[in-house]
């Protein structure tokens, strides 16, 4: 097999991972149509009924029947999730109840109208986000979409029909659907249905909608829908071929780059790139290069750029905002880094002889890149607005202009007495100096004013005829012209310089703040310290209030660190959502954007460590990319700091635990040695006493000493064993073996304790081998047999039986003694519990507790019942598992 015929292992791995992720996710089936009225909801409900009839757990989340009787009829007999009422502007809007659906957790849920926008105050602004959450929860979803609601086709449909809808679904949601069913109806039939009144039209919008349902529109929409479906089928086919590796269709993984510029072409470039990328099935990126010049853009223009980037992200692009001095060079560098071979740009302005268009500059810098220019949007004329610097906190502009005028006047006053000594050219120099000073101190506007005033004052007070604007010598006009030009250039240069210095200072300030925060964080040892550093940083850099919310052991969030009320409107529910999903939520995000607070999950390398809640003074600053970058960097720092603190705690805990473990072990081993040695001596010495002739009393005493020493040693053994089990130190030496061996050895070991009692063993033939630790199970049996010996009268019968029950082996030890006190069957197994309180029977009640510990360590269970007609039965089970091959190899 040729090397290049094999599927790419990386691609295979990726496919396996995607399939695994998909297996856990719910499946999405989209009923896709060209426009309203083709019968999507009807088709969806019919399909659901069929599945319902086959026994699937189907629930209707929301279905818009628009009062159509035939559709309404299909709804009957299907379980529906009650809608949630949301109050909005004194009206109640009935919305799909996501939480109820998640709580109900059906196998399949029907959610109509994927493009629907939820009422303000819902968790997500868009219904498709609800659907994504349902899918994540492993619930299958049926839904419906019209072609005009697909984000990438939205403007095309708008262009065809003249009606642009604002409810859109990102293409990736549609593309990632597991199945798409095209619900098709010819335009003629649709129009017929419309005339028959079978298609619902809202009263108020009737005329507009009638306009929409023109035959030409319907044909175009149908074509779009068919084509989009065909694209998808095509992609499925290609995916199939890739997966089967029947005949690999090689494609270089080229990708696209859409450039968002300050002009209006950005959105069009993005939509075009999205369509191109979808057709070619390649990934794509969208970037915005922010040059120092662009940082001064009016707020509205910046907002539009951010909006465009967000659109790109929704359409499936990887987006970035890059700082750079030269937009073209930065773009080329990015394209090279990410192996992007095609660049889509909006047409910015007509090329002039001194300034090339952006596309041309790109082409010169990187002749190997394909550059695609797309038309500019008509409404995309550059926004005119007073240029306000978001950074500058200038003193009031009027004062600056007054100061500028005053400076010019002062120069005039100063120069007037000097005019007899100085040439007029030198006086011009003094004015230029003043303009420079104004530009440096007061900025561009006042400097421009100063330039004009200087020319005017120079003309009025110095150029003969003085005190008049008239000019004696025509050559002064040239002087004025040059003076004005030079003054303006100086003003511009100085103002730029000043601006850049301020930007640099600002950056430096932020970098320093970040650096200091990082330094402080690296020294923080407790969550409270981290919270304080966070508060300080947020206040200083963003002027915002912040709180860190950390999860408890059950991953439930609780507020920590920050002083009480640092962020009063904190909503733990949103914070929990952000934490669970690892996504930002709240202010300015996709999730609950109406909240006044932004919730950022603190993602550390190992896991999400908590949530940072920020209440900014102005909501807009969250939209500014450099602020967001700074915030993201800081939140990463915070997350790492929290994680580090967490691991410090873990390490300390481990050290403490190890210490206590070591202590306990040494105590145990000392105890076991130091108690046993004298006991052994006691037992042995009391045993040899009778070797010499003793009086009967002495003999009795010797026997008593011996008996007590043996009891004491049993007690010590029990206590030490229990301690070992409690510390989890016991390792099982499990081996496959027959029960009869351990029963035999246990009977042999407890022969003395059983005395005269008759023991019957009933082990059925052919019992399987069981995996257990023989020593410990012998211990269990011995303890049970000794109990039988202790609590039954001499001559009692003891029976040991074993039986196979489904997946366990049950072994029981029964006697025909007086039995257990009713109701105490379970407490018997607690530590220091005795069968009969304060009885003369020796023991401390650890035997059964040890039995339970042993059996449970084997994964089994132990319990007691009273036998009929009287007597006690102790039963324990051991899991059977799969025994090894016990067939004996043939003998040679």
């Amino acid at each position, binding site marked *: 097999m040729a090397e290049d015929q094999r599927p790419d292992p990386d691609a295979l791995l990726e496919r396996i991972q995607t399939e695994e992720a998909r297996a856990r996710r719910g499946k999405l089936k989209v009923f896709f149509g060209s426009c309203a009225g083709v019968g999507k909801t009807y088709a969806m409900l019919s399909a659901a009924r069929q599945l319902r009839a086959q026994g699937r757990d189907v629930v209707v989340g929301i279905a818009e029947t628009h009062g159509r009787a035939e559709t309404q009829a299909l709804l009957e007999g299907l379980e529906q999730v009650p809608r949630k009422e949301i109050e909005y502007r004194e009206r109640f809007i009935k919305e799909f109840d996501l939480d109820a659906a998640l709580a109900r957790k059906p196998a399949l849920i029907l959610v109509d109208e994927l493009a629907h926008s939820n009422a303000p105050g819902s968790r997500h602004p868009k219904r498709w986000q609800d659907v994504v959450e349902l899918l994540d929860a492993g619930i299958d979803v049926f839904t419906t979409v019209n072609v005009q609601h697909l984000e990438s086709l939205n403007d095309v449909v708008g262009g065809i029909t003249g009606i642009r809808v604002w409810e859109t679904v990102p293409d990736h949601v549609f593309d990632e659907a597991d199945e798409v069913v095209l619900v098709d109806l010819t335009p003629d039939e649709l129009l017929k249905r419309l005339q028959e009144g079978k298609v619902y039209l809202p009263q108020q919008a009737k005329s507009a909608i009638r306009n929409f349902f023109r035959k030409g529109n319907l044909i175009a929409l149908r074509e779009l829908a068919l084509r989009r479906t065909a694209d998808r089928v095509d992609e499925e086919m290609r995916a199939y071929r890739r997966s089967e590796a029947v005949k690999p269709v090689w494609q270089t993984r080229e990708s696209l780059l859409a450039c968002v510029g300050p002009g209006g072409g950005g959105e069009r470039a993005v939509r075009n790139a999205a369509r191109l990328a979808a057709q070619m099935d390649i990934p794509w990126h969208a970037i915005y290069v922010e040059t120092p010049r662009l940082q001064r853009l009016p707020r509205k223009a910046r907002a539009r750029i951010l909006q465009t980037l967000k659109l790109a992200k929704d359409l499936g692009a990887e987006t970035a905002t890059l700082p750079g001095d030269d937009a073209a060079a930065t773009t080329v560098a990015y394209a090279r880094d990410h192996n992007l071979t095609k660049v889509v740009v909006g047409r910015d302005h007509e090329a002039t002889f001194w300034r090339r268009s952006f596309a041309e500059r790109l082409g010169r810098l990187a002749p190997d890149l394909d550059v695609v220019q797309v038309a500019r949007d008509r409404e995309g004329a550059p926004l005119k607005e007073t240029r306000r610097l978001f950074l500058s906190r200038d003193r009031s502009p009027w004062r600056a202009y007054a100061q500028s005028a005053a400076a010019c006047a002062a120069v005039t006053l100063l120069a007037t007495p000097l005019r007899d000594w100085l040439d007029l050219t030198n006086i011009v120099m003094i004015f230029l100096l003043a303009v420079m000073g104004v530009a440096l101190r007061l900025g561009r506007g006042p400097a421009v004013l100063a330039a004009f005033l200087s020319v005017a004052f120079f003309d009025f007070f110095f150029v003969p005829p003085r005190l008049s604007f008239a000019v004696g010598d025509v050559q002064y006009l040239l002087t004025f012209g040059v003076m004005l030009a030079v003054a303006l250039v100086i003003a511009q240069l100085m103002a730029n310089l000043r601006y850049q210095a301020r930007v640099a200072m600002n950056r430096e300030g932020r970098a320093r703040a970040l650096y200091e925060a990082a330094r402080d964080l690296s020294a923080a040892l407790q969550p409270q310290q981290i919270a304080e550093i966070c508060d300080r940083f947020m206040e200083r850099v963003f002027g915002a209030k912040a709180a860190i919310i950390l999860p408890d052991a059950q991953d439930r969030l609780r507020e920590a660190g920050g002083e009480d009320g640092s962020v009063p409107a904190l909503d733990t529910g949103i914070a929990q959502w952000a934490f669970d999903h690892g996504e930002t939520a709240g202010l300015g995000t996709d999730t609950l954007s109406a909240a006044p607070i932004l919730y950022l999950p603190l993602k550390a390398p190992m896991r999400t460590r908590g949530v940072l809640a920020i209440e900014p003074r102005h909501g807009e600053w969250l939209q500014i990319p450099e602020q967001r970058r700074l915030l993201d960097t800081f939140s990463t720092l915070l997350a790492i700091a929290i994680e580090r603190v967490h691991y410090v705690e873990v390490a300390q805990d481990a050290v403490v635990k190890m210490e206590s473990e070591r202590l306990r072990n040494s105590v145990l081993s000392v105890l076991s040695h130091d108690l*046993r040695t004298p006991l052994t*001596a006691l037992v*042995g010495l009391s045993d*040899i006493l009778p*070797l010499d002739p003793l009086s009967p009393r002495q003999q009795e005493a010797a026997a008593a000493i011996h008996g007590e020493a043996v009891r004491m040693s049993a007690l010590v053994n029990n206590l030490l064993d229990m301690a070992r089990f409690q510390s989890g130190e016991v390792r099982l030496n499990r081996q496959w073996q*027959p029960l009869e061996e351990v*029963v035999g*050895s246990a009977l*042999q070991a407890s022969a003395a304790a059983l005395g005269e009692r008759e023991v019957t063993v009933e082990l059925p033939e052919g019992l399987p081998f069981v995996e257990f630790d*023989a020593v410990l199970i012998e211990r269990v049996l011995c303890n049970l047999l000794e109990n039988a010996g202790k609590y039954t009268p001499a001559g009692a019968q003891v029976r040991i039986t074993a039986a196979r029950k489904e997946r366990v082996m049950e072994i029981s030890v029964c006697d025909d003694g007086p039995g257990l006190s009713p109701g105490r069957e379970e407490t018997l197994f607690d530590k220091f519990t005795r069968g009969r309180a304060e009885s003369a029977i020796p023991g401390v009640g650890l035997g059964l507790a040890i039995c339970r510990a042993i059996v449970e360590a084997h994964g089994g269970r132990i319990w007691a019942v009273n036998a009929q007609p009287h007597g006690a039965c102790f039963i324990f089970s051991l899991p059977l598992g799969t025994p090894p091959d016990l067939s004996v190899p043939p003998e040679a």
Partner: protein
Amino acid sequence: MGEPVVVVVEDERQIRRFVRTALEEDGCQVHEAETASRGLIEAGTRKPDLVILDLGLPDRDGVDFIRDLRSWSSVPVIVLSARSGEEDKIAALDAGADDYLTKPFGVGELRARVRALLRRRGPQGEGSGPVVEFGAARMDLISRVVTRGGEEVRLTPIEYRLLAYLVANAGKVLTHRQLLREVWGPSHGDSPHYLRVYMGNLRKKLEADPARPRHLLTESGLGYRFKP
């Protein structure tokens, strides 16, 4: 042959004391050693018939002691071990110890074990006789015939080898590993369930009540012992 010589290696004086008393009562000549190194010297010079060794000696690991001893002597060894020291016991038995006693132990138990091992050493011990009888069973090592209650019992070759090895080491605790190695060969050291299957078969064929064997005894977690 004179009175049997026993060396007791044990660091606790009181334990040594009652062991000595108990064994002298049985007519043994007892030499004591407090440490392992001293014990090796005693074992070398006294030519003992039996060594009693505590596994928890302060100066040296008991298993090392047995290995050393076994390099030049096949004298029977009884080890004294703490409870819950299964690994130590197995290691000592594998190294060549013959039997073990778990502390605390009674004098009666001690004397019984000592007697059993001393008996094996004498020329009249069961280990060397051509015919071994236990319970209703009778094993003729020359004609390789095993009978029970007078009727011949058919044993497979492995069953026979297993039984013969157990009988030859009567009274001695044989670990799973030793039995597997001796009967199956060195490659079967890790499959003790074969051994369990064959032991089960032997018990069914030779014991009166296989669930409560009287001769083919199980030492839980360690191995088996043949008790005549």
